[in-house]
C-alpha cells in the first residue's frame, strides 16, 4: 500500500514537471520580445518603404531607456508611472498607436548596463549615453541604426531645437548615427560656500586658492565635526581646482586636445594641494567610498549642515532640491557662490561643456527607429518641452513674464526631481531657440533661488575652456577609454590624494607612469597624429 502511494507521488511529480517544462518553453516561443532580434532586415535603411501603421492595428511597443537615480522623494510617484510617463503615453503614444515601455537603468552604471543590453540584443529601442567612445565603438562594430533619413522625414521640430551645429556632434563616419541633446548651459561645475559660517567667523569671501585654504582651516577649527570642503570630491567636480594649477602659457591647443590631464604642466601641484587638504582633514576622509557608487552621502551631509564649501554640478543644489531641504532644516543657512581657483594669470579656467549633451542612439536590432524619431520630434514642440520640463500649469508651475516658474509646493518637489531624464533632447531648461538669456532665466525657475542659479551659471562658466575637436575617430581611445577613465578617475584620483605627504611625489610619478604604460601613451600619440592631420 505504501509503496503504491509512493509510486503515485513520483508519477504525479514527474507529470507536473513535464507539463511545466512544455508550458515554459512554448511560452517563450510566443514571447514578442525575442522575435525582433532574429529578423533584422535591411528595412531599417529605407523608412519610406515601410507600410504606415493602420490605427486599428494592435499598438506597437516602443521601449525607452530611463535613468534611475534612486532619488525619488518620499511622496513622489514611481518614475515609471508618474505625470511624465502618462503625459507621453496619452499625448504621443495613444494618438500614434504606440505603447510606451520604460526600461530603467541605474544612473551610475549606465555604460555597463548598456553594454550588457546591447550584447544580449535586448536593448530598448531608444537608448542613450554620455560616453562618446562607447558610441564610437558601437558605430565601428556596426551596432547602430542610421537616423539621418528618419530625421529628414519626421524630424522637423527636432531640427529646429537641435540646430545643425548640435546635430553635427551625432555624425560618425559621415552618417547621423546619433541624435545629440542640446546643452542649454555650458557651465559644468560651480562652487558654493556657507556665507553664514563666514559671517559667524567674520571671514571675507575667499577669492584666491590661498584664501580658500585659510577659510577651510578656519571652518575646520570652528566646526570640527563638519567637512570643510565636502562637495562631490571626484575627478570631474575638482576640474576648476585642477585647471587653476595648470601652467596655461605652456599648453598649446594640441596639448589640450591630446595630452591626458595627468601630464599637463602644473597638474601635480593641483594634486599636491588636494593631498594636503586630505591629510589635514579638510576634505571628506570617506570620499573614496562614494566614487563610482550611488551614494547620496554628500547630499545628506549638506542637508544636515555638515558641509562648509563644496563643488557640485552647476545649479544642481536647486534642481535636485537639496538646497531647499537645507533651508528647511536650518533657517539661518546662507549660501554664496564663489570662484576662488585662480591661475598664475589671475584667470579662473575651468572646463566648459560643448553644445552637445547626451547621445541618443537606436540599436540596429530595433525596428522602431521611425517611432523613436517621431517621439523626439513630438518632444521638441514648444508646448511639449514646457510640459516635459515643468509639469502642469497651476499645479507645479506658473508663467511669470512668459517664462515658466516652478511653484514652491510639494507637488512640484515630488515631480520635478528628474524631469531632465524624460526631456532627453535638452540638458537644462529651455524656452527659446534665439535668446539664451531667456534660457538662463528659465533655469532660474525656482523664484526663491533665482540668484543662486544665476550666480551658479556665472561662476561656472567664467573663463571656460573647451577642448579642441577632431573629427577622425581615435581608434586606441575607443578600445582603452573606459579602462583609462577608471584608472584615472577612480584609482589614481584616490591613491594620489590619500597618499602620505612624504610619499606623494613617488606615488604621483609611479601612477602617471603606469597610466601612460597601460594605454595613456598610445592614445596620446594617436591623438597628436590625428590633430596634426586635421589642423596642418
Amino acid at each position, binding site marked *: 500500500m505504501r509503496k503504491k502511494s509512493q509510486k503515485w507521488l513520483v508519477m504525479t511529480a514527474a507529470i507536473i514537471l513535464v507539463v511545466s517544462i512544455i508550458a515554459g518553453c512554448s511560452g517563450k516561443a510566443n514571447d514578442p520580445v525575442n522575435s525582433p532580434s532574429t529578423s533584422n532586415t535591411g528595412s531599417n535603411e529605407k523608412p519610406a518603404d515601410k507600410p504606415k501603421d493602420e490605427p486599428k492595428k494592435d499598438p506597437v511597443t516602443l521601449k525607452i531607456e530611463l535613468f534611475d537615480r534612486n532619488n525619488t522623494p518620499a511622496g513622489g510617484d514611481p518614475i515609471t508611472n508618474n505625470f511624465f510617463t502618462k503625459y507621453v503615453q496619452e499625448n504621443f503614444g495613444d494618438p500614434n498607436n504606440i505603447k510606451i515601455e520604460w526600461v530603467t537603468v541605474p544612473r551610475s552604471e549606465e555604460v555597463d548596463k548598456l553594454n550588457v543590453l546591447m550584447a544580449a540584443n535586448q536593448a530598448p529601442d531608444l537608448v542613450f549615453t554620455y560616453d562618446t567612445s562607447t558610441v564610437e565603438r558601437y558605430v565601428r562594430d556596426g551596432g547602430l541604426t542610421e537616423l539621418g533619413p528618419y530625421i529628414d522625414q519626421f524630424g522637423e521640430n527636432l531640427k529646429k531645437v537641435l540646430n545643425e551645429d548640435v546635430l553635427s556632434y551625432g555624425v560618425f563616419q559621415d552618417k547621423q548615427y546619433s541624435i545629440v541633446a542640446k546643452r542649454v548651459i555650458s557651465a559644468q561645475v560651480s562652487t558654493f560656500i556657507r556665507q553664514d559660517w563666514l559671517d559667524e567667523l567674520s571671514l571675507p569671501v575667499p577669492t584666491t586658492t590661498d584664501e580658500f585654504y585659510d577659510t577651510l582651516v578656519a571652518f575646520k577649527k570652528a566646526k570640527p565635526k563638519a567637512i570643510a570642503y565636502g562637495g562631490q570630491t571626484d575627478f570631474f567636480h575638482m576640474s576648476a581646482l585642477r585647471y587653476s594649477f595648470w601652467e596655461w602659457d605652456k599648453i598649446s591647443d594640441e596639448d589640450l586636445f591630446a595630452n591626458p590631464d595627468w601630464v599637463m604642466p602644473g597638474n601635480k601641484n593641483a594634486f599636491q594641494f588636494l593631498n594636503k587638504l586630505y591629510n589635514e582633514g579638510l576634505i*571628506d576622509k570617506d570620499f573614496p567610498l562614494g566614487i563610482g557608487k550611488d551614494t547620496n552621502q554628500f547630499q545628506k551631509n549638506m542637508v544636515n549642515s555638515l558641509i562648509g564649501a563644496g563643488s557640485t554640478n552647476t545649479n544642481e543644489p536647486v534642481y535636485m532640491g537639496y538646497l531647499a531641504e537645507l533651508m528647511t532644516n536650518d533657517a539661518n543657512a546662507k549660501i554664496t557662490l564663489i570662484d576662488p581657483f585662480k591661475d598664475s594669470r589671475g584667470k579662473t579656467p575651468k572646463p566648459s561643456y560643448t553644445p552637445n549633451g547626451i547621445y541618443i542612439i537606436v540599436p540596429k536590432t530595433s525596428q522602431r527607429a521611425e517611432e523613436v524619431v517621431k517621439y523626439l520630434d513630438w518632444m521638441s514642440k514648444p508646448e511639449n518641452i514646457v510640459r516635459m520640463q515643468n509639469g502642469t500649469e497651476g499645479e507645479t508651475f506658473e508663467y511669470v513674464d512668459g517664462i515658466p516658474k516652478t511653484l514652491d509646493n510639494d507637488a512640484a518637489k515630488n515631480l520635478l526631481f528628474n524631469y531632465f531624464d524624460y526631456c532627453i533632447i535638452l540638458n537644462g531648461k529651455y524656452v527659446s531657440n534665439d535668446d539664451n538669456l531667456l534660457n538662463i532665466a528659465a533655469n532660474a525657475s525656482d523664484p526663491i533661488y533665482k540668484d543662486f542659479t544665476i550666480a551658479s551659471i556665472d561662476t561656472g562658466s567664467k573663463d571656460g575652456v573647451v577642448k579642441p575637436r577632431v573629427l577622425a575617430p581615435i581608434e586606441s581611445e575607443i578600445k582603452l577609454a573606459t579602462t583609462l577613465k577608471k584608472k584615472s578617475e577612480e584609482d589614481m584620483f584616490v591613491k594620489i590624494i590619500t597618499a602620505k605627504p612624504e610619499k606623494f611625489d613617488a606615488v604621483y610619478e609611479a601612477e602617471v607612469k603606469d597610466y601612460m604604460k597601460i594605454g595613456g601613451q598610445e592614445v596620446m600619440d594617436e591623438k597628436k597624429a590625428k590633430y596634426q592631420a586635421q589642423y596642418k
Partner: protein
Amino acid sequence: MQLTPNTKPLTKTISSSPVKTFFNNWQLYILILLPMIYFITFKYVPMLGVVVAFKDYNVFKGIFDSQWIGFDAFREIFRMDAFIKAIRNTFVLNLLDLVVGFPIPIILALLLNEVRVKWFKRSAQTLLYLPHFISWVFIGGMATQLLATNSGSVNIFLNSLGFESIPFLSDKTHWVMTYLAAGFWREAGWGTILYLAALTGINKELYEAADVDGATRLRKMWHITLPGIKPTIVILLILNVGHMAAIGFDRPFLLGNPGVRDVSEVISTYVYTVGIQSARYTIATAIGLFQAIIGLIFLLSADFISRKVNDQGIW
C-alpha cells in the same frame, strides 16, 4: 538475520535488463531531467562561449562571424600588470580566508556540541547561521553605514569615547581585516552545520568509556570528538584548497572601493571591469578561461592529495 529481507528486491533489480529497469523507474528518470537540463543549458552550453577568447569578438556580428585571432588575447593579458595583481590578490585573500577562517566553524561546532541547555544551543545555532541568508549587497551597505570613517556608527561611537576613528574601509590593512571579518560573520555559523552533523555520528559509548576513565571535557574533545570529525575536516579542507583560484564577485566588489583597489581587485572583479565596463569581451573571456585552467589544476591536485591522505578522492 537481518539480511534476508533485503536480498530479495536486490536480486530482482540485478536480474532484469537495463531497458526494463529504465521503464520500471521511468518516473525517476523524468525527475532527473530537470537538473540535467539545468546543467546542460547553464553549465555546458555556455562553455562553447570560450571560443570568444580566440576571436576578435564583435557583439553585433556574433560569435561565428567574428575574426579568429589565435592566442593574441592571452599574450595581452599577461602583459597587464593589473591582471597579475588581480591573480595575486585572489590567492592572498583566499589563503587568508582559509588559514584564519577554516578553524572557526570547527571551534564553533565543538563549543556548540558542549552546550547542554537545549534551547540555548538551538537559538545560538540559528543566530549564528542567520547571517548566511543576508546578501552581500546588504552587508556592503551595512559596512559603509557602520564602518565609514566620518559617518559610520562605530567610529562615531569610538569618537564619543575619545578614541581616534579607525579607517576600516579606506586603509588597505584594515580593509583586508574588515573583508575577512565580514566573511567569517556571514559564513562561520553556516559552516558549523556539516561538523555538527558529523558530530552526531560519533559513538556515544566512547564518551561513556572516557567518563569512566575520568577524562575531562578537553580530553574528550581532543581524543574523541576531533578524531571523530577528522575525515570531514580533511575533505572540506581539500575542497577549499581546490577553490583557491575561484573567488566570489559580490564580496570584494561590494566591500571594496577605489581607495583599496590595490588589494581588493580580484579576478572576478577584474573580469567585470574589463568585460562589462570596457566591453572587451575577448580579453575578459581569456582571463576567465585562464582562471578556469588554474582552478582545474588546483582541484586535480587536491583530489590527488586526498587519495593519498584519506584513501578516497573528492569524486
